């Protein structure tokens, strides 16, 4: 076999394998697992204050970051996909920190003091700071 043909076949084979590997990675790349990340420790009131004071600054500090939030559960509900949701209260009665669990945290009641870790997805004015993909720390 001619040298250039051999080179072309080997290069083509490597290219094909690399392409398949890339496709495999795209289809199987795992989602973030917040339980393996170190969270920024805050209380629900501290997180709310930060967004109320300056949304742009708070976004820079907390958006897309793992947040380890401690506070008292104000309300427990289930969303339309069956995931457990906990609202933490703030000093504004109309504003909560809305936290959705990725895994079932078991039995939670309003008034429980818990530590929740999840990913902060942002701030909805006059409503909530949203954290999802969460797990119960304690």
């Amino acid at each position: 076999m001619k040298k250039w043909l051999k080179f072309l076949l080997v290069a083509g084979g490597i290219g094909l394998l690399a392409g398949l590997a890339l496709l495999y990675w795209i289809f199987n790349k795992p989602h973030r697992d917040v339980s393996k990340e170190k969270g920024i420790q805050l209380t629900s009131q501290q997180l709310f204050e930060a967004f109320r004071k300056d949304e742009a600054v708070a976004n820079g500090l907390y958006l897309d970051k793992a947040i380890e939030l401690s506070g008292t559960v104000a309300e427990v509900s289930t969303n339309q996909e069956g995931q457990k949701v906990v609202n933490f209260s703030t000093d504004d009665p109309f504003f909560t920190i809305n936290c959705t669990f990725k895994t079932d945290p078991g039995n939670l009641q309003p008034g429980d003091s818990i530590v929740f870790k999840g990913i902060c997805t942002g701030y909805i004015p006059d409503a909530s700071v949203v954290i999802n993909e969460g797990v119960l720390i304690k």
Partner: protein
Amino acid sequence: MKYLFTICLTTFALLSFQTLNAQKTFGTRNGQIIFQSPTDQDVKAINNEVNSRLSDNGSLSFSLLIKSFRFKMAEMQDHFNTEYLHSNQFPRGDFKGTITNIKTVNFNQDGIYPVEVTGDLTLHGVTKKVSSKGSITIKNGKPLAKASFPIIVKDFGIKAEDVTEKVTITVNCQYQ
């Protein structure tokens, strides 16, 4: 004269209070909105943290965070945020509108009521008028709003022709 003025003012205040008192508003912080490509079933994103308010006078609003959308494939979710919706620059999507035939909905009687909605949708920093047909289902005094309508992504300045030209937005919000 002063006496008459006081009576008028008191009557007005009482009537206003009654009107305010009569208006009922329902809300949720965990409504559901789905973005889906009509041509590729895999291009589907679900947001379960939609903040919405519905009043029995017909006003309707939705507010959601782009980063709250979840895809089955993590890579697709990353592309959605960084290359198409630019969620750091435009973190929220909003809709403010009205149900034009709200008088046909009886919030005190269980049933399924067809509705027509029109309003302003803001996505990717661009606001457009949209209209849709949908339904309000009343069960045990609590409404469930459903609607589905297409948008053309380039109308909102979103360059996603390589993935899809249209996206179907499906609303499914259970109010408390």
